[in-house]
């Protein structure tokens, strides 16, 4: 598997929500980076993990597969997985693969936060 070309920064955003800022390319090669970011996001007891795709530059089908695996992990911990910052193109991919039925999609981080504290 190739070298990951992605950076994932984790921060707590309030309302029991942690945000993972994804910048770069999401492929199967970045699974260790994503899982490590997810563990960091979960360590403070977040009930919801928001994947912020504003900086997403490229995603292949391996990347989508990895998100399914992450979804299973989140489900085991009774956490909600959400996404924001998807361009129209990537939003359509979430809809095509029907990932949007399990990962709630928000237009931006503020909408996700507003929903989390409601």
């Amino acid at each position: 598997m190739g070298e990951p070309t992605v950076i994932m920064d984790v921060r707590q955003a309030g309302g029991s929500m942690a945000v993972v800022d994804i910048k770069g390319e999401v492929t199967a090669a970045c699974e260790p980076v994503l899982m490590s970011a997810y563990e960091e996001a979960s360590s403070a007891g977040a009930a919801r993990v928001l994947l912020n795709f504003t900086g997403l530059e490229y995603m292949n089908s391996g990347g989508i597969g990895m998100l399914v695996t992450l979804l299973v992990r989140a489900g085991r911990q009774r956490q909600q997985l959400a996404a924001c910052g998807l361009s129209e193109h990537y939003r359509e991919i979430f809809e095509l693969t029907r990932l949007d039925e399990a990962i709630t999609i928000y237009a931006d981080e503020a909408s996700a936060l507003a929903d989390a504290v409601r």
Partner: protein
Amino acid sequence: MSDQAVPENVAGAEQIGLSAREAKASVQPRDAGNWAAKVERLAVVQRDGVRGTNVAGRRLTGPVQGFGKMWEKTYSLNAGQVTTPQDAIATWKAHFPEFWPKGNRFAGALAGISPGDVALLDLAIGGGVKLSTGVFVLYADQESFTLMTPQGHMFAGWITFSAERTGDATTIRAHVLMRANDPLYEVGMTFGGHAKEDQFWAQTLTALGTRLGVPDPRVETRSTCVDSHRQWRNAKNIWHNAMLRSTLQTLAAPLHRRSRPAA
């Protein structure tokens, strides 16, 4: 994305009067041509040599929509130093049906595998019955392509076929992420279905390896249960079960022929 990170062509678009948001939206990411366009339900072009039932009008199903335990399976083949990943995938895409084990039919577009294509399948399940189903080409680039299954297929998920350089050699892989689509398929997968599937893809990769000139191709299989829970809310998927429907269609075929007026 910060202003500094905006691509050059976006900055150019801003100079001709587009807002930053409009300019960003007008730039297609480089994977745009690799993904199929969004579809709600599958449309089918009838193809010779397959029955072509149980696909038209069906929705796509991923692991989220499946019923059974979730499995991740990887079938790998060391294709040696001579074949490049691009050559391996080009050959696989262009001749995909030729590598399938005997008794199974894959009827795709003549041009090979392209995003958005729907291929029709007849799969040997024994007793003179062919399971009639299909697959959708979700993604394709020069080093990989992915097929996604419709409602009624044995499993809900996708299979990614890829090749990459690892050290001096090219490794070819079929990677399956799936759940059995309904309770009946789950029973079938548990009692022999998984072993049959493993054999299917091992034979396929062996045939591909032989075509690529790999001496004595050996396929390595790795299978992991990612989620042992069954998604009972999706048990109703059995309504679309293509195996049951194919069996009924096979039994009903003589009656159809008899009721059709002679030409």
